[in-house]
C-alpha cells in the first residue's frame, strides 16, 4: 500500500510542560496512514515527550501538563475513556530495552493475555509471529522459556519490539530503538519496518539521521521543543530544506 495522505494522527497546537519547563511548544503535525514518519532533532528537543503525549503515558509523570489537541482516527485522545485500549492501539519502543522479569514467551504473550486472550495455540502463534518480525525468533526459539531479562541488551531490545507488536497496534512508535542493537540487526529490523508499513503507521524517532533518510517517507525536524519543519524526506535531506539549521543538522555541521 502506498502511503496515503489520509490522516492517522492529527496534532494541533500541542504544548507540553514539565512543571515550569516547557518541553513542546505549538506543535502542528499530521501523521499519515501507512507512512513512516521520521523524527530527528538534537537532544532535549522533545521527541520522546511527543511520543509519550500520544499514548498518554505522560500522565504518569508528576507535573507534566498537556494542552492542545491530539486526534487518532479523528478521536480526541484526551477524551478517550478506555485508556488501556488506546495504549494497545499504539506499540511503544523506548531507547533502553526492558525485558520484563518473565520468560521470553511470557514477555511477548503479556499484552495479549492482559487483553484477555487465553487460548494457548493463539498465544503460541502471536509469540512466534512477533519474535519473527523482531528478528529474534531464530536465536531464542529453543529457549523460549528462559528469562527475558537474561538476554543480551540487543536481544532485549528486539524482545521489546516483539512485545510492542504483540497487541497488533495500528501505530508503532520507535524511540531510538537502535541504541542497544548492533548494525547488522539494526538493518534486519529496518527491513521489517519497511514491511510493517503496509499494516501500520510508524513513527520513528532517531538520532541516526541516515536511518530516517533510509526509512522515512517524511521527516520532521524538532529543535528546542519546536517543530522547525516537516517535509518529504528527500526535501529535508536535500541541499535546500526550508531552514538552514535543518541542513546543518542532517549534514552534521550543526553545533
Amino acid at each position, binding site marked *: 500500500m502506498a502511503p496515503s495522505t489520509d490522516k492517522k494522527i492529527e496534532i494541533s497546537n500541542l504544548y507540553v510542560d514539565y512543571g515550569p519547563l516547557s518541553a513542546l511548544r505549538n506543535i502542528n503535525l499530521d501523521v499519515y496512514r501507512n507512512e513512516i514518519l521520521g523524527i530527528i532533532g538534537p537532544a532535549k528537543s522533545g521527541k520522546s515527550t511527543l511520543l509519550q503525549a500520544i499514548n498518554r503515558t505522560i500522565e504518569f509523570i508528576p507535573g507534566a501538563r498537556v494542552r492542545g489537541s491530539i486526534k487518532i482516527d479523528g478521536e480526541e485522545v484526551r477524551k478517550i475513556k478506555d485508556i*488501556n485500549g488506546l495504549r494497545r492501539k499504539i506499540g511503544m519502543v523506548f531507547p*533502553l530495552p526492558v525485558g520484563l*522479569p518473565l520468560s521470553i514467551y511470557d514477555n511477548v504473550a*503479556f*499484552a495479549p493475555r492482559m487483553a484477555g486472550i487465553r487460548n494457548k495455540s493463539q498465544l503460541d502463534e502471536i509469540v512466534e509471529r512477533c519474535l519473527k518480525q523482531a528478528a529474534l525468533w531464530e536465536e531464542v526459539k529453543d529457549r523460549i522459556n528462559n528469562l527475558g531479562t537474561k538476554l543480551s541488551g540487543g536481544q532485549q531490545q528486539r524482545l521489546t519490539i516483539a512485545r510492542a507488536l*504483540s497487541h497488533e497496534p495500528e501505530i508503532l512508535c520507535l524511540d531510538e530503538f537502535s541504541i542497544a542493537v548492533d548494525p547488522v540487526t539494526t538493518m534486519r529490523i529496518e527491513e521489517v519496518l519497511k514491511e510493517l508499513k503496509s499494516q501500520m503507521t510508524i513513527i520513528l524517532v532517531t538520532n541516526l539521521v541516515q536511518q530516517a533518510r533510509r526509512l522515512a517517507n517524511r521527516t520532521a525536524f524538532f529543535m528546542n521543543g519546536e517543530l522547525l519543519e516537516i517535509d518529504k524526506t528527500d526535501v529535508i535531506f536535500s541541499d535546500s530544506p526550508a531552514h538552514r539549521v535543518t541542513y546543518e543538522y542532517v549534514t552534521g555541521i550543526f553545533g
Partner: protein
Amino acid sequence: MESITFTETPFVRKKKRTEALAKLIFFLMALSMIIPLVMIIAYLVVQAWPILSIDFLLENPANRMRAGGVWAPLLGTIYLVVISLLVSAPIGVLAAVYLNEYATDNWFTRIINLAVVNLAGVPSIVHALFGLGAFVLFAGIGRSILAASLTLAIMTLPVIIASTKEALASVPMPFRTACWNVGATRWQTIRTIVLPNSISGILTGIILQVSRAAGETAPIMFTGAVFFKALKDDGLFAYNLLDQCMALSMHLFTISTQVPDVPHALPYGTAVVLMAIVLLTNGLSIAFRVYLRSRKRW
C-alpha cells in the same frame, strides 16, 4: 615471550599494609557483633540446661509458678502473634501497595508517609497506653487476647507498611512503564509483575515482626496479658478470643522479678524458649532473603 615482572615499590608495600590493617579492623568490628549474641545464647542455654526438655514446653506452670513448664504462656504468645499479624499484615500490605503504586505525590500522601515513619518510631509503651484507651476502654473489648493482639497489630502495622513499601519500590520503575505501554492496567501490572517480584521481601518484613510481637511486654501488659491463667484443656484452642492470656515475655518478667523462690533454671528456660522463637523467625526471614536473591529475575 618475555614475561614482565613487577617489583613492589615501598609505596605499593605501604598501601598493601594499610589495606590489610583496614581489613582486620573491619573484621574485628563484624566479629564484635557476633560475640555478645553467642555469649548470651551460650549463657542462657547453660543456665537453663537442667530444665530444658519437651515437657518443659508442653507443661503448664505449676506450684505458683515455681515448677512446671511454659505451655500456657507459649500458647498465649502464639495467639497474640498470629492474631495481631492476621490483622496487621493484610492491612499493612494493602496500604503499602496503595501508597507505592497508586497514590500520587500530594500533601495528603506525604502526611500519611510521614505518619508511617513516625509511628514506626513510637515507643511500645505508648502503643500500650493507646491500646488500653482505644480497645480495652473505649471500644469496650476489655482486657483480652483480642485487645492485646489489636494493640500489637497497631504497633507492627507501620513497620510492615514501611518494609512492604521498600520491597515494592525495589521493583524497577521501567517494568511498570513497559506494562502500561502495552495497555496493562495498574492492577494487572501489580498482580503480574510487581507483587511476584517483591513477595519475598514483603514476607521477610512480616516475619521479622513475628519476633518483635513475641518479644514485647509493654503493649500486652495493660491490654490482655496476665500473671497467671489456668487453661481449660491441653488443646491448641484452650484460649478464647475474649480471655486474658499468659505470654512468654510477661511470664519471664514475672518469674524473674515478682515471684520469690523460683528455681534458678526456670527463668532461663523461659528465656531460651523466647530466644528460640526470635532466632527461628529471624532465621526464616534470612532464608527467605537468600532464596529471593537466588531467584532474582533481572
